[in-house]
């Protein structure tokens, strides 16, 4: 068990995913010759780079995609990998960081909406375990939901980690340079996270307020085929609008 850091420490830590394993969320959105391929999965950053091309080839073959996809997939994975690695040497702030994680995703026909708090300090956390338990508890039959949930969590954690790197850098600069703005910056750095003390300061119990119950309750909805079709067409239109 790692000793818990003191509550108010802002000791910087080397960048990593705040989970038990350094798994990176990879999102693919490739369009080649009118065919669009979207995917999202977790990737183990410590695996050798040869795996990238193997995986890309495999995916392309299994899904019977045209050959051009393989290279594109490999490229995309590699860019995201290098991006992750670029953060590697950096430091990020840890501290009292309980962040709300929101799930709002649709996988095939299942719609999931949820929100919960996640401890960024806990480097033993495991989104995969969470996702498995989530699906089991809610009786989700579609097996594709699990990975999607885990991916969503990881993505958000990744974003937060990146942000914390940025704030760490800023605060370092601030420390070095302008002392005056230090306090405002430091308060900004903790803005993304909820301070535990603040959260529980005005209560005598740990129970949430009633009006927040709905927000924090997981909601799983099964869509019918028409709804799915409707949603997808909406997404398409939105995307076309964006591109136009």
């Amino acid at each position, binding site marked *: 068990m790692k000793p818990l850091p003191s509550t108010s420490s802002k000791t910087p830590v080397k960048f990593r995913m705040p989970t038990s394993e350094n798994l990176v969320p990879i999102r693919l959105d490739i369009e080649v010759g009118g065919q669009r391929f979207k995917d999202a999965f*977790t990737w183990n950053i410590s695996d050798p780079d040869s795996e990238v091309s193997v995986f890309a080839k495999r995916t392309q073959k299994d899904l019977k995609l045209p050959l051009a996809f393989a290279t594109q997939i490999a490229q995309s994975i590699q860019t995201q990998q290098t991006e992750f690695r670029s953060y590697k040497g950096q430091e990020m702030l840890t501290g009292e960081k309980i962040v709300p994680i929101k799930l709002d995703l649709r996988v095939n026909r299942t719609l999931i909406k949820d929100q919960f708090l996640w401890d960024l300090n806990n480097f033993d956390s495991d989104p995969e375990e969470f996702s498995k338990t989530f699906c089991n508890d809610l009786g989700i039959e579609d097996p594709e939901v699990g990975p999607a949930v885990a991916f969503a969590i990881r993505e958000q954690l990744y974003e937060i980690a990146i942000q914390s790197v940025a704030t760490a850098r800023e605060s370092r600069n601030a420390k070095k340079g302008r002392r005056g703005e230090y306090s405002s910056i430091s308060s900004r750095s903790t803005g993304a996270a909820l301070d535990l003390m603040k959260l529980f300061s005005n209560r005598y119990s740990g129970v949430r307020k009633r009006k927040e119950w709905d927000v924090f309750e997981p909601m799983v909805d099964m869509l019918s085929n028409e709804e799915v079709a409707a949603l997808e067409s909406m997404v398409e239109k939105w995307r076309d609008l964006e591109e136009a």
Partner: protein
Amino acid sequence: VALATKQRQWYFGLSVNERTVVHQWPSFFSFGSPSTFWAFLWKYSFIIPSVFARPPKNLRNLTAMASTEPPAAVTPPSSKPNLLPLASPTIITPSAAASVAVAPTASSSSPATPSVATPRPIPSDAEVVHIPSYSCWFSLGDISECEIRCLPEFFDSRSPSRNPKAYKYIRDSIVKQFRRNPSSKITFTEVRKTLVADVISIRKVFDFLDAWGLINYSPAALNKPLKWEDKDSKSSQHAADSPAGPSLDSTPPVRETSKRLCGSCKSVCSIACFASDKVNLASSFHCNGIHTIKGNPSAAFCAIASLEHCSTNLVLIVLNQYDITLCARCFVRGNYRVGLSSSDFKRVEISDEMKTDWTEKETLQLLEAVMHYGDDWKKVAQHVGGRSDKDCITHFIKLPMGEQFASSAEFGSSINKLNQMKDDNNISSSSSPSKRLCLSPLADASNPIMAQAAFLSALAGTGVAEAAAQAAVTAVSEMGQGEPKADIRSLHGVQGLQDASITSNGSGILKSVEEAHSGVNPKPEEKEKVNVEEEIRRVAEVQMKQIQEKIIHFEEVDSQIEKEWKQMEQMRDILFYDQLNLLKHERAIRKSGQQAAEGVRTQGDYVS
């Protein structure tokens, strides 16, 4: 190895009862015509190369692992009590010699369980799962040493997400997912979309399971013994999913056929069509009539087994091949017969189709070449001229059975040799000059020994080859005892046996077949059968006699030893007596000496 041979022998038997090789061959063999022999060979070489390569398809039905067989018998000995998942899908592990690809079979982390049972009614497919015998260590409840060895990164705690629990989760999910639909191959992408883990771990486990045949292993896919089956299955798989559009990475096999008509919708195939030349129809021919058994060869075997029992008439199995052509539309719709699956079809591009049917001349050339060159298809192709070796093989397979090619001059020196062989067997009579060329499609079976055996036995004729092989087998089995086989030789009258017993094991069968007699005429089948049974009886008698003689010999030796022992004892007694006497005399002499001395003294006293 002993286990494997035992099982192989069982396969030779292929019977409802578990009889051994020697006894079983005849009853299957009581067919007189080459077509049936061909059928037998089809079975035989189908199995034998498969024994070396992969478990054969027909075993699936024959070795129906009854659901009565307790799962405990199948799982490796390290099974723990919570192995319930195995109770519902009973695992059939058709025993086979180690497969080519897998070196770790030598590991013997758990002994291969001989799982073959007598054929019983086939359980429904939902209960049956096939895995190759080299993977029988696998169990859903455990992690075995083999897995630890092959995927060490999950077990060395180097990375926290790769731990045994995660491994088990991934492995079990993949296997369960595959088993939900065992007839279709599961792809890695399907799997990884449904598993909560990082994709590389999933891929490693998937590849491992694939390599060991625990997933994506269906005996149906092992139907073709031809050498290029991998390419075919790959191309057919590719073709299967992109029927109309251009398939980017499959090379359509070039076939030579004429205009193609779709089998089901009867329209001319336009862009592409799918052909299956799977040999899968079997018809059995009773003396009374012809019954056709449609379906897979596996069904045919069951039919054979059952028919064999039900009638004293003989069952001739004639296997036809079924050449189906479907246009793209019908293929996609799935308009094919029961017993075929989409993987059996090969995509054929109409635009690429070249010529036409084989002319008579070409066929003759092909047969000639096959006679001369046997297995060497390149030479055959050269001889035929204008056809590639693959075309030759394809066409060869397709040639109808029972064709007779009269002139023996075509067949070269080997047949002449056969013709000249003497025969004092009461089975055979003079050789018939007209040979029937049994065209076995096995000449290009992957196992070279079997291919040769098949080919040569096709030349020699059924009964001859059968008797010769039978004799060779008995000779080979007795060779270990080092006894001369004079009796057997005379009994069987198969001259080749002499050679068989002299030469090494491996070539024994071949030689005996080569030099066996020619032309056992297709006599009435019963007589042959009876004769052969008589032969077996004689063989058994001879063996019994040998054993009796041995016993007598041992008894003699025994009695002799006893005699010698008795003699020894007597001699010992005599020696003892002698010693005793010696001692007595000694004492007596001493005493008398003393007395004499005393006497002298007393006398001296008297004197003085």
